[in-house]
């Protein structure tokens, strides 16, 4: 389809929910009020690691207005987002593993009473020694936080070797050997989590929740409550921001469901901001060790990359996160030999999980700084070094990921041009610097979270004889505009105004399954399903209209709310008439579409994390100023180019780029989640620093549009990828400004000053981790890269690995 024919796609239209959003009419989960509704509160652990000796609820039970108290032992079945880590109880039964873990839930006539009741519940604990760091987590222990961990508190280790990495590094002219640390941080969506459950007299349960993944919540409820899933309806309300923080099934959702079942009345819970910090599931702190080998001419020869993730107390998405810290290191620059070893440790902190970029910003941070260091040592421009090593279109990576379109060359060229890079890099006065970094992200995870062969996204379309088009889809709008994308796509294909289309989403009773708003999967997967459903609907309409107009079907065009003869546009019926003709001819008109990603070339165990129908790419340049006396950093400007495939709505795309840049800058400069004596140091919006309107700098967004054959109308993702270049670009710019390397984030004035001081004393002008703990990774799985004759499966142990063993 050529651009000239598009009437909706590519236009900066309003979102379908824009009017509701600007008038306060959008109904978020906490805005729901049901007749007879009760309010719940959760009593949470005050101990990082302890056995529960006793729970005394007597005082609370006898209070006026208290309707039910729920204890962990009433819900003995565990849950968790991944099938391999079903390790959470709704409420702790005998052990608490982090401060803030849910222990008791109370439902009462109002929130104040529920709060009072919670205060009158007494828990006696027997404290255990908490594990609060990666270095502590890798030590052997007698009392592992989770009994199913691989060894001690080491939850999981991964080891892959794609080609002869040792020889590649041995033979390289230059090997960089660095350690990096990426601090943990949290999503901080403006909306605090909330849920309302209503158990109905006919034995049916309805849950409304601020969730990004109603389908997975549906499954968790059925499992824990031991109910037939067909008797449970989960409705995801529009999320007031998610960023990955509302992608797990949560204790509070299950607790209100159970309370409603006990009492027979609707029950609401709305978490406080402090509780949201304890729900967490945010960015894993990751310690990294990277050895990158290059030849004298700047060709990358091999990469050996190690990670250890601080997982917090439960599994959450952590196993997938661990794989992701190694999966996408190969997608931007051609790496002929690659070894990845990753591990996740349990610690007594709120569980970490997926935050925007899920497990990939941390390793990207290390790689992009290391490329900058390599360019310095090789005395080449870091932009040129990247361009020299770019992955090619339609190629396979060492770890068998299929790269289809890659617009990274254009992205780099555009930001280099727009920022005046060539005249600024290493040429700005002391204190002012410029840094470049790139990134890559999935456009949807190739595999579903639980193994199945069904579509990952489904769409139904209903055509009413009034001309109204209704789209049903399980996807959840978290502010990214997924409802609007459905309307734009269907509106384009059926030739109707997308803002007049009714979009019904995120309701497990009414809408076909979509797996959820994560992994940047929604536009591509729901979009492709919507294309299929809409094309099927257009087929009925075209058939009926062609008969009416007495012309061949091929000449029918749908646009502008009409269906007409391409050779005589005046020869037409309006859209409502077209539906009526089709309905008369075929009966009630409804169509379906579905989407399942293609099979991955990676056939080895563990190769399920990383494959995607296609990948987005970004390049960014940041210019900034550092005051060498105070270490204070001021952003001057960000230039970012993003390979979007095709912008279905450029205004929304740029909004996602700007939001990602903002969030990446927050992580780079100030956001961090720290603990002291087992307690979260900053569980409030004042103490947890995030960028305000006063901290932002201008952002120039440049879109690279080369339609990708996998995406609907060629679209790729944009919600996450543009975050990735930010932290390394900041660090590279700081080096350009004042000549010190900050190998960890956030980049605070203190760290800059320390590095400057060290440098002035003739020491290494660097701030960052000094060592990487020895850890026993499992034996590596060997997979030959495509260029060494592999077939995507694990091979037997190659001969070269036996050398010197």
């Amino acid at each position, binding site marked *: 389809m050529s651009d000239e024919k598009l009437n909706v796609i590519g236009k*900066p239209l*309003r*979102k379908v*929910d*824009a*009017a*509701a*959003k*600007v*008038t*306060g*009419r*959008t*109904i*978020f989960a*906490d*805005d729901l*009020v049901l007749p007879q509704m009760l309010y719940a509160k959760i009593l949470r652990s005050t101990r990082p690691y302890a056995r529960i000796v006793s729970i005394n609820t007597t005082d609370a039970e006898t209070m*006026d207005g208290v309707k039910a108290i729920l204890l962990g032992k009433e819900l003995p079945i565990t849950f968790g987002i991944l099938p391999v880590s079903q390790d959470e109880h709704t409420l702790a039964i005998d052990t608490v593993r982090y401060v803030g873990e849910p222990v008791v839930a109370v439902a009462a006539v109002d929130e*104040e009473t529920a709060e009072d009741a919670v205060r009158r519940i007494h828990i006696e604990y027997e404290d255990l020694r908490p594990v609060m760091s990666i270095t502590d987590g890798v030590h052997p222990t007698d009392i592992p936080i989770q009994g199913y961990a691989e060894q001690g508190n080491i939850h999981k280790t991964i080891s892959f070797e794609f080609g002869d990495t040792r020889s590649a590094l041995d033979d390289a002219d230059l090997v960089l050997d660095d350690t990096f640390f990426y601090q943990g941080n949290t*999503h*901080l*969506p*403006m*909306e*605090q989590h909330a849920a309302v459950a209503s158990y109905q007299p006919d034995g049916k349960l309805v849950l409304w929740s601020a969730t990004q993944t109603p389908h997975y919540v549906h499954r968790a409820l059925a499992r824990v409550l031991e109910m037939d899933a067909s008797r449970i309806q989960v409705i995801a309300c*529009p*999320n*007031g*921001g*998610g*960023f990955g923080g509302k992608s797990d099934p949560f204790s509070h959702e299950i607790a209100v469901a159970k309370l409603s079942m006990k009492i027979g009345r609707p029950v609401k819970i709305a978490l*406080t*901001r402090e509780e949201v910090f304890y729900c967490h599931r945010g960015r894993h702190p990751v310690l990294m060790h990277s050895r990158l080998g290059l030849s004298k001419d700047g060709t990358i020869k091999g990469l050996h990359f190690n990670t250890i993730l601080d997982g917090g107390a439960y599994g959450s998405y952590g196993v997938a996160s661990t794989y992701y810290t190694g999966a996408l290191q190969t997608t931007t620059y051609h790496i002929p030999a690659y070894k990845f070893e990753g591990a996740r440790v349990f610690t007594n902190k709120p569980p970490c999980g997926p935050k925007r970029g899920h497990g990939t910003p941390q390793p990207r941070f290390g790689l992009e700084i290391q490329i900058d260091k390599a360019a310095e040592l090789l005395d080449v421009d870091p932009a040129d070094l990247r361009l020299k090593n770019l992955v090619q279109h339609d190629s396979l990576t060492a770890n068998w990921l299929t790269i289809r379109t890659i617009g990274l060359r254009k992205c780099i060229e555009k930001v280099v041009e727009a920022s005046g890079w060539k005249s600024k890099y290493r040429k700005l006065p002391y204190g002012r610097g410029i840094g470049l970094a790139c990134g890559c992200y999935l456009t949807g995870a190739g595999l579903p979270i639980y193994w199945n062969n069904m579509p990952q996204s489904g769409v139904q379309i209903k055509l009413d004889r009034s001309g109204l088009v209704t789209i049903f889809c399980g996807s959840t709008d*978290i*502010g*990214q*505009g997924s409802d609007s994308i459905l309307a734009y796509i269907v509106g384009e294909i059926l030739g109707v105004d997308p803002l007049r289309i009714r979009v019904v989403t995120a309701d497990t009773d009414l809408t076909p399954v979509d797996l959820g708003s994560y992994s940047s999967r929604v536009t591509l997967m729901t979009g492709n399903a919507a294309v299929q459903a809409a094309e099927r609907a257009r087929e009925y309409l075209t058939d009926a209209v062609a008969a009416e107009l007495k012309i061949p079907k091929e000449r029918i065009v749908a646009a502008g709310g009409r269906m007409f003869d391409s050779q005589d546009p005046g020869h037409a019926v309006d859209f409502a008439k077209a539906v009526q003709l089709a309905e008369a001819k075929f009966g009630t008109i409804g169509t379906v579409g579905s989407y399942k990603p293609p099979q991955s070339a990676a056939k080895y165990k563990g190769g399920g994390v990383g494959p995607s129908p296609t990948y987005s790419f970004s390049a960014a340049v940041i210019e900034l100023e550092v005051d060498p006396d105070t270490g204070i950093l001021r952003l001057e400007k960000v230039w970012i180019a993003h390979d979007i495939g095709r912008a279905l709505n450029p*205004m*929304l795309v*740029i*909004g996602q780029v*700007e*939001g990602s*840049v*903002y*969030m990446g800058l927050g992580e780079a400069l100030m956001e961090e989640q720290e603990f002291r004596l087992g307690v979260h140091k900053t569980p*409030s*919006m*004042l103490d947890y620093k*995030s960028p*305000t*309107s*006063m901290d*932002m700098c*201008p*952002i120039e967004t440049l879109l690279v549009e080369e339609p990708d054959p996998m995406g609907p109308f060629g679209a790729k993702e944009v919600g996450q990828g543009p975050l990735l270049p930010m932290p390394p670009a900041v660090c590279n710019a700081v080096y350009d400004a004042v000549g010190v390397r900050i190998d960890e984030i956030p980049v605070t004035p203190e760290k800059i000053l320390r590095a400057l001081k060290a440098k002035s004393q003739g020491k290494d002008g660097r701030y960052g981790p000094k060592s990487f703990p020895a850890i026993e990774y499992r034996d590596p799985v060997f997979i030959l890269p495509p260029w060494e004759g592999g077939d995507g499966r694990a091979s037997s142990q190659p001969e070269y690995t036996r050398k010197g063993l």
Partner: protein
Amino acid sequence: MRTKELFRLLVNGELREVAAYPSRTLLEVLREDLGLPGTKHGCEVGECGTCTVLLDGQPALSCLLLPAELEGQHITTIEGMAQGPELDPLQAAFADLGAAQCGYCIPGILLVAKSLLAEHPHPSRAQIEEALGGNLCRCTGYLKIFEAIERAANEEPQHVR
């Protein structure tokens, strides 16, 4: 046992009588007792700006206000911003420029912007940034919000109400 008290509040030009616990904040009373859930909450302790309303035209955090201190003052919430079905120019600009992503912080930000434009009909970018310094937004990176306020300022003169 707590008892409720009767408050008379002037909300969006209507005199409303409401019985509420005196410990309830204006935020809670608006949302839970007066059926005005357009005012959102992000922290409930005065840190994020989400619950901003206008008190006699000035931005104020409803989570830190008690109804007892507000009798006689004009309270404007997001529900009182549009003129009937007609969007305020600020609201239209936010919708047209994609300044509302999840939209959760937007009621508070729109009211701050309304107050800013009443005082400075053509604010500089720096004035906008400063006015919004107390309103966190996690979706937009603020830039589209700045642009929407500038567009509204350029399109229509702002009337002080």
